[in-house]
């Protein structure tokens, strides 16, 4: 375990540095935060003063060194926009974001697994076509459409769930479904194509020759073997969700990282963007590690690679 962590760290640290440099440069390329912070009536002199106050008048590399030195001491700097330390701003969004991402993932899996398997087992039948059609709709209809439709149907017409906001369990159902449907769509297709491959493997025939019920043959013997690429995509999807549920967050007024990130990017709020990307990168890396662990659990052969 220790060794593994050390090895991961050896790769993580340079990646984090790389990311911090890229983000630093990117944010600076996109524009001058001062232009966004001051009213249009501010004079050039006002701007210079503010720039100096924020340290933006220094050469870029110098700014970066100052920045990275502070980061190494655990200080991610202050948000231009909120005037507060950046890291807590980001951290305080994480629970909402994780909650939404996790439940959405769960919903995606619960929908996609049976659909994908049925689709593969009943390949090229009407059922398969229907599932394909639904999953394309799930993918081709944007999240805002899906979200608003769900609100209109389940909140306004049926009164089953609250419209928006974060709160109890009932609040997460609609936003999670909105995202989950899109995730399910992609996973369904992937599971289908995997299952097709697996179902023609010899060991499936072996399972049948044992007299197992078809449900077990497919659900036990085929399914787990087909999970590896699905897990890859799932971890990709999950990590994408960590910063990328803006549309759904907006529709459901969900105070997640997506909104913060977009506001910060739009405001060129360097410190927050950096802190957010730092956290997201950590999540990406931790997820990749977890995925590795899950791989090993799913497929004992993985060790041989």
């Amino acid at each position, binding site marked *: 375990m220790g060794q593994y962590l050390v090895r991961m760290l050896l790769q993580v640290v340079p*990646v984090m540095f790389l990311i911090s440099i890229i*983000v630093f440069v990117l944010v600076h390329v*996109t524009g001058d935060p001062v232009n966004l912070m001051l009213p249009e009536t501010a004079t050039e002199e006002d701007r210079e003063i503010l720039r100096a106050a924020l340290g933006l008048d220094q050469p870029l590399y110098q700014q970066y060194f100052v920045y990275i030195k502070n980061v190494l001491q655990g200080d991610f700097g202050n948000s231009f926009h909120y005037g507060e330390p950046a890291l807590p701003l980001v951290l305080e969004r994480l629970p909402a974001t994780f909650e939404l991402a996790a439940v959405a993932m769960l919903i995606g899996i619960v929908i996609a697994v049976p659909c994908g398997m049925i689709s593969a087992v009943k390949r090229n039948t009407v059922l398969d076509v229907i599932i394909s059609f639904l999953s394309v709709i799930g993918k081709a209809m*944007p999240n*805002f459409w899906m979200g608003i*439709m769900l609100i209109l149907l389940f909140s306004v017409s049926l009164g089953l769930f609250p419209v928006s906001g974060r709160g109890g369990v009932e609040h997460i159902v609609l936003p999670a479904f909105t995202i989950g449907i899109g995730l399910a769509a992609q996973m369904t297709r992937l599971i289908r194509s995997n299952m097709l491959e697996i179902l023609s493997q010899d060991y499936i025939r072996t399972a049948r020759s044992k007299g197992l019920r078809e449900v077990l043959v497919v659900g036990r013997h085929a399914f787990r073997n087909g999970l590896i690429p699905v897990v890859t995509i799932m971890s990709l999807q999950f990590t994408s969700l960590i910063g990328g549920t803006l549309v759904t967050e907006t529709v459901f007024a969900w105070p997640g990282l997506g909104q913060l990130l977009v506001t910060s990017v739009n405001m060129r709020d360097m410190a927050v963007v950096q802190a*957010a990307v730092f956290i997201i990168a950590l999540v990406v890396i931790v997820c990749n590690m977890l995925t590795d662990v899950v791989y090993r659990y799913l497929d004992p052969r993985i060790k041989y690679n």
Partner: protein
Amino acid sequence: MEQQIKKRKTTLWSLLWNSKLGSLGAIIVLFVVLVAIFAPWIAPYDPAALDPIKRLKPPFWMEGSLPEHLLGTDNLGRDILSRLIYGSRVSLIVGVGAVLVSGLVGTLLGLLAGYYGKWSNILIMRTADAFHAIPSLLLMLVMLAVVGPGLTTLIFVIGLTNWVSYARVVRGEVLSIKERDFVRAARAAGASNARMLFKHILPNIMSTFIVLSGMNVATTILMESSLSFLGLGIKPPDVSWGTMLSDGKQYIATSWWVSTFPGLAITITVLGVIFLGDWLRDVLDPRMKAND
């Protein structure tokens, strides 16, 4: 024997014909492509011609519809049918173009990472991690600042944010394919690395590529609309399905048709692409031909 060979040459078409879904997909895709090409001749109106007074009229079967606007009008009173017809152009170009760009970049990098391993693997996969962690919005804004708006920029921006998933999946495939004996056999024959990569490994990951790409067409068409929102994509009066969708966003509750029709257009097109892709995958795989 002679006969058999002749039969083989014609099988491609007959295979398409025999595959119901494949031909359905082909028909859909062909239809959309034709619509895009012949848009000016088909569309009943100028897609940009607006008449705010006639805004938000419903499609023909609903009360209050205008007979001259079959699928109703949008928020500025433009004819939705005409916009759908013209919108197919940008959407198709972006959908296909961006998928190709991300597919090419991602596949290439995935190939290299998987094939060469070692430092190129670390370099590429960590870069992928970085790309994955950096918000795409930021990348897009930078592209906007550096390259300036336009259709090509749009395609490249989408391509550059989407390559990661290709790279990951392709790399995984390559890792297993490169252990197969036929790759060794090619090496034994003295094949160069390029030959190994493109002649032996690449064709064997095509099916993965196709499965990924089918759904990605939908993703990119939708992404185009959010980029247009950032000012990176096309500008009015040009029209695309994505922009139609986002224009209709605030009217979903009151005038569903504004956003639902372009959504359906995307759905049907992607469905066509996917059916065609499934078929293509089978055709590209000589083994599958036999059992369709």
